[in-house]
């Protein structure tokens, strides 16, 4: 590890990881703000804390987007990197955090849950996710993964009076820590075999010849298994439906988007920086013979092939049999992970771009759907099961229209962003010759369309059996729903701009060194 000679410089820390600094400071400040507010202004605590969180996250987003480009030195101390790929994924995470914070203000009020630590934990969860995506060191990756997970475990258990929430959180905690133990074991083995845990040095050491030793393969497999838990690919998904059903609705939306974006982002980074480095623009490997490492593809590609297939099939098939709409969306998020895995499997520029685009559009439509879902699920007499959604279409036209829009986007129908994302991912897979898998994937997305459209059918074509009273709609939630709805339509009609940015972002993985 000592061969590089890292120099600490405060300005470089601000340049590379300034967003993280802002988030930590905001999180710490919020603790004091909370103490002050709960003593004096108890009634407006939730609103003030919520807006503080939104502005802190927007400041971070501003720092990420509006700093000087190009950065002269994108790696800080061999721990964090700020290449465009991690900046793009960080932006997705921040967007998800901002939307979740906006919706939380209304959600907490509706469920009389206003507690200061909620927003503090939300900020730290966002911080952990961003640190995870930015890290280029396996140990930092583990610590960031745990910071993110610990905050999310507590958020998942936030409904104290609800047994489902507690049960889901415990399952999440147990399986999450089981998964990270595997990640750690892989880390320790790699450290023993190569003497480093830095991704770029690791890539050089591995390509020097020992990459096909059984010990190295076991280590890589265990690190990947640890990440598969977080990405919720079948058969590592057991916790997903339980946690997503039990957690507060907004937190479910956050977990399904930000945490997933973080896990997928870091997986792509690990895969294409260390295990199978992408070649530089000229097609020539720059620093070492990356061609050697291409041999590793023969090991992870078949694994990912099967995982993508199983995830797409099980996610969609089991979702069909769900009666609870929230649980149905949980299985649908498992299925979406399968489509993103398909894009990673393609392992070409278009596939990586497709994954980024998919993550972005999925964040918009999923958070939007959970926003509507929490409003419809009012405190008493709220809509939870599919039967409850009968006849809502004409009683609450705006909410039902928004729900339909998000569901259509998730089903992948044009003219929504969901269609474009699926299109990029599938075309990338076909280009690389995964014809069978792509065909099966399209088949599963037809199954998916069935259960998404069934909700819309229930809302507009059936008569209500019992009266549903949605909760009050808070102004911040309206803002969040407008942003998500416009985003889903805008990026469905004009995807080129976002696609170009995503394509530049994925190419930057070649320059982490």
């Amino acid at each position, binding site marked *: 590890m000592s061969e590089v000679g890292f120099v600490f410089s405060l300005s470089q820390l601000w340049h590379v990881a300034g967003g993280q600094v802002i988030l930590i400071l905001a999180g710490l400040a919020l603790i004091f703000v909370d103490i002050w507010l709960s003593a004096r202004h108890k009634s407006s605590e939730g609103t003030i804390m919520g807006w503080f969180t939104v502005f802190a996250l927007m400041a971070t987003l501003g720092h990420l987007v509006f700093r000087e480009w190009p950065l002269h030195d994108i790696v800080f101390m061999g721990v964090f990197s700020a290449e465009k790929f991690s900046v793009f994924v960080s932006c997705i995470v921040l967007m998800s955090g901002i939307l979740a914070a906006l919706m939380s203000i209304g959600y907490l009020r509706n469920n009389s849950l206003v507690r200061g630590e909620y927003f503090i934990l939300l900020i730290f969860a966002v911080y952990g996710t961003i640190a995870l995506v930015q890290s280029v060191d396996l140990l930092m990756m583990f610590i960031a993964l745990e910071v993110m997970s610990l905050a999310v475990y507590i958020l998942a258990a936030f409904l104290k009076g609800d*047994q489902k929430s507690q049960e889901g959180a415990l399952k999440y905690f147990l399986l999450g820590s089981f998964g990270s*133990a595997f990640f750690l074991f892989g880390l320790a083995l790699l450290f023993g075999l190569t003497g480093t845990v830095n991704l770029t040095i690791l890539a050089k050491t591995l390509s020097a010849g020992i990459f096909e030793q059984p010990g190295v393969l076991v280590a890589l497999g265990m690190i990947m298994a640890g990440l598969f838990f977080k990405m919720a690919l079948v058969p590592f998904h057991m916790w997903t439906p339980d946690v997503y059903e039990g957690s507060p609705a907004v937190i479910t939306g956050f977990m399904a988007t930000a945490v997933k974006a973080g896990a997928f982002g870091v997986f792509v980074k690990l895969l294409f920086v260390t295990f199978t480095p992408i070649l530089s623009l000229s097609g020539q490997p720059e620093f070492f013979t990356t061609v050697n490492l291409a041999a590793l593809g023969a090991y992870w590609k078949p694994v990912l092939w099967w995982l993508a297939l199983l995830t797409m099939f099980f996610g969609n098939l089991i979702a069909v049999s769900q009666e609870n709409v929230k649980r149905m969306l949980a299985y649908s998020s498992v299925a979406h992970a399968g489509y993103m895995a398909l894009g990673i499997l393609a392992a070409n520029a278009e596939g990586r771009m497709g994954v980024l685009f998919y993550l972005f559009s999925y964040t918009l439509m999923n958070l939007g759907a959970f926003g509507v879902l929490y409003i419809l699920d009012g405190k008493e007499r709220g809509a939870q099961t599919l039967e409850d959604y009968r006849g809502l279409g004409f009683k609450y036209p705006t909410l039902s229209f928004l729900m339909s829009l998000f569901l259509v986007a998730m089903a992948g129908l044009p003219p929504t962003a969901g269609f474009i994302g699926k299109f990029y991912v599938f075309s990338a897979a076909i280009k690389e010759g995964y014809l069978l898998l792509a065909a099966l994937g399209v088949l599963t997305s037809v199954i998916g369309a069935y259960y998404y459209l069934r909700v819309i059918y229930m809302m507009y074509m059936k008569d209500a059996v019992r009266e549903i009273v949605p909760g009050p709609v808070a102004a911040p939630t309206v803002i969040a729903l407008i942003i998500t709805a416009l985003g889903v339509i805008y990026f469905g009609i004009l995807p080129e701009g976002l696609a170009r940015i995503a394509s530049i972002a994925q190419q930057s993985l070649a320059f982490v060194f």
Partner: protein
Amino acid sequence: MVTLTHYVALSSILFGLGAIGFLTRRNAMILFMSVELMLNAVNLMLVAFSEFRADMAGQIMVIFIYAVAAAEVAVGLAILIGLFRHVRSIDINKFNLLKW
């Protein structure tokens, strides 16, 4: 003579025992302990590698892992108590409100 292989074998066995315990036992506390056993198996291996490679980085990693493990236990026990208030049991077979 105790060599590196012995340490790696010992920590692998401990890790395996932890994993088997996690998958077969039904008491939530034992599951916690199994995960802790797995983490400590990793710590043992890191210290052994660190000694073998004469690189202190491995031992520093152990400190980080300790800190994370401590935080993890604090959160996990809190969640378990929250659930115990509802179910009055820590048998994970009784946590069956959510399935399929």
